[in-house]
């Protein structure tokens, strides 16, 4: 296990360098001059333009720019937003809890529905329920997030007026951030109404963001479960006289979870991509929307820093998932 952890952790370094390279160079491929964008429609005189280029280091050769960038990153300096002049790290950490709250809710939603649906579909193989789950999850998997979000808004917010259209909480409330998670902060500050408002604001984005992981988890759980239920050790469990529930929920599920956890790990990256779209649709004040805004403003430091930080987050979550995988799979845990 130690060896396993060590190899997994040591992979972080090349991955990290890869992320910085991508964050740095891809953004430079975007057409358009950031200084001109900054100046807006009024334009800018050439002297001031040149001065700003120097200030931001755009006049240096690109490799030197990267070198400077990397050494600053390693010192924890991700630069300042060109628009707000706030350090990128501060903006990120004040917006990140909103994204995490949404992503956690989405993955919980996907797990709470996807796992049981997949398990029951596997047990009742070829039943109407099974075909239903498989059909719906195929549809969910192929659903374009933008379209799906707009449909839900039209239906639940516009047509039935059940849920708010956008935002994280009603503007009536101001909640001092403690943890940054509104569901927790509202309760901590004893604002029950605000809590319900936050819940209502969460419903649609959660569904939109959770749909793809839900579909993937349901399908994966079903197929893993089907495979496991045909294994010899399930026959042994039956021969011991164990109840059906114990066989499915303990002996089969424990093994079926191994591939499911892997898939969840792979979904984390997808989840953050989805978060960017979802936050844009629902004006959710998280890092996804922040990044999209930065693209339109050509806010290089924000884009670079944000992409880098998101990359690091995805990388760490994947690492955690891998370690969890080692924990539930004794065959990995014991290989030296």
């Amino acid at each position, binding site marked *: 296990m130690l060896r396993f952890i060590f190899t997994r952790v040591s992979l972080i370094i090349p991955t990290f360098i890869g992320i910085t390279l991508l964050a740095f160079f891809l953004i430079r491929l975007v057409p358009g001059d950031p200084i001109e964008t900054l100046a807006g429609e009024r334009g800018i005189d050439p002297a001031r333009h040149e001065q700003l280029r120097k200030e931001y280091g755009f006049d240096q050769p690109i490799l030197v720019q990267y070198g400077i960038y990397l050494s600053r990153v390693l010192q924890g300096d991700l630069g300042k937003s060109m628009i707000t002049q706030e350090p990128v790290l501060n903006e990120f950490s004040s917006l990140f809890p909103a994204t995490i709250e949404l992503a956690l809710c989405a993955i919980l939603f996907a797990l709470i529905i996807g796992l049981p649906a997949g398990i029951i579909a596997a047990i009742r193989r070829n039943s109407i329920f099974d075909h239903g789950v498989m059909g719906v999850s195929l549809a969910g998997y192929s659903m374009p997030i933008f379209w799906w979000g707009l449909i839900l808004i039209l239906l639940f917010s516009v047509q039935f007026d059940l849920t708010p259209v956008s935002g994280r909480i009603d503007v009536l409330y101001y909640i001092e951030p403690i943890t940054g998670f509104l569901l927790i902060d509202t309760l901590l500050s004893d604002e029950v109404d605000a809590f319900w408002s936050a819940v209502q604001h969460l419903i649609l984005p959660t569904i939109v963001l959770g749909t793809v992981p839900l579909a993937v988890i349901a399908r994966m759980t079903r197929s893993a479960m089907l495979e496991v239920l045909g294994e*010899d050790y399930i026959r*042994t469990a039956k*021969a011991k*006289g164990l109840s059906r529930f114990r066989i499915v929920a303990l002996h089969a599920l*424990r093994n079926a979870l191994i591939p499911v956890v892997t898939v969840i790990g792979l979904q984390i990256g997808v989840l953050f991509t989805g978060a960017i779209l979802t936050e844009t649709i629902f004006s959710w004040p998280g890092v996804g929307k922040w990044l999209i805004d930065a693209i339109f403003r050509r806010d290089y430091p924000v884009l670079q820093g944000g992409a880098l930080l998101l990359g690091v987050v995805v990388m760490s979550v994947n690492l955690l998932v891998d370690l969890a995988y080692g924990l539930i799979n004794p065959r990995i845990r014991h290989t030296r």
Partner: protein
Amino acid sequence: MALVEIENLSVEFPTQGGIMRAVDGVSLKLEEGEVLGVVGESGSGKSVTMLALMGLIPFPGRVRADKLTFNGRDLLTISEKERRKLTGKDVAMIFQEPTTSLNPSFTVGFQLTETLRLHEGMDRKAAERRAIELLSQVGIPSPESRLSAYPHQLSGGMNQRVMIAMAIACNPKLLIADEPTTALDVTIQAQILDLLMNLQKERKMGLVMITHNMGVVADTAQRVMVMYAGQIMEERSAADLFASPQHPYTAALLAALPERSEGGRLATIPGVVPGLYDRPKGCLFSPRCAYATEHSRNVRPELRPWASGHIRCHYPLGDPNRNAAIHHDHPLKTEAAS
């Protein structure tokens, strides 16, 4: 009262190509403490017969029987719940592949104590003490430290010992061993067989030994049941069966034993076990039998009492009028007449 009574058991699996009859009219009585060998080529229905007795036929398999009792309990009408109280306690089963038969995600100790806690109502401590006892009874060295081992950390032979410990944990009246040594190294095979036979003698439990190795049967069984294509072909005491097989199929199986073959060459029976589409109308063995006649090809022989047991053949090898009967019924192959 016999420990097990089976009358006219059949097991069918619906498949895409039609209904697959895996077990066809099997009748069997087993006394307490008896050792029964079940032999036959691959696919002859040995496992499925015993799985039906265990109540482990997977969906959508269908089990039918005129009678199916264990220890006086009618298994055909018993509730699912009552049945589970029997399985794993009074009747237990071990399988061919010990390593895949144990759950890879749980320790040996967990899997062993699980049975004890379920059927004997032991608490964790008591179950663990008993598990250590059991592991040492099945010849596992330093059993305390094995409790926390996972199956992939043990050898195949060790895993089979764990399976055996699990099976005998609740002192079953009947243990079904489905080819318990086939997947193991030759040297380990003998050890496992010895272990099983010793446990059987100590505990006087009934033992069904499924195998396609006649040698294993000769070493272990008191009575032998020879199966072919889902049917019993011959059933009698082991001593009689080895001394003078009565069914041509039994004789052919014995001839295939290495020590009986001439010049060290292994005799095999030409042809294959009939499948779903080529099941003969008459005797199931007739396409491969050296003594087949027009009659046996068209009329299925019944399982009938013969000598010290039962046989399903028109012309048992020990029948004095055999040659005349075969002649009369038009032999299909010339060697049969000679």
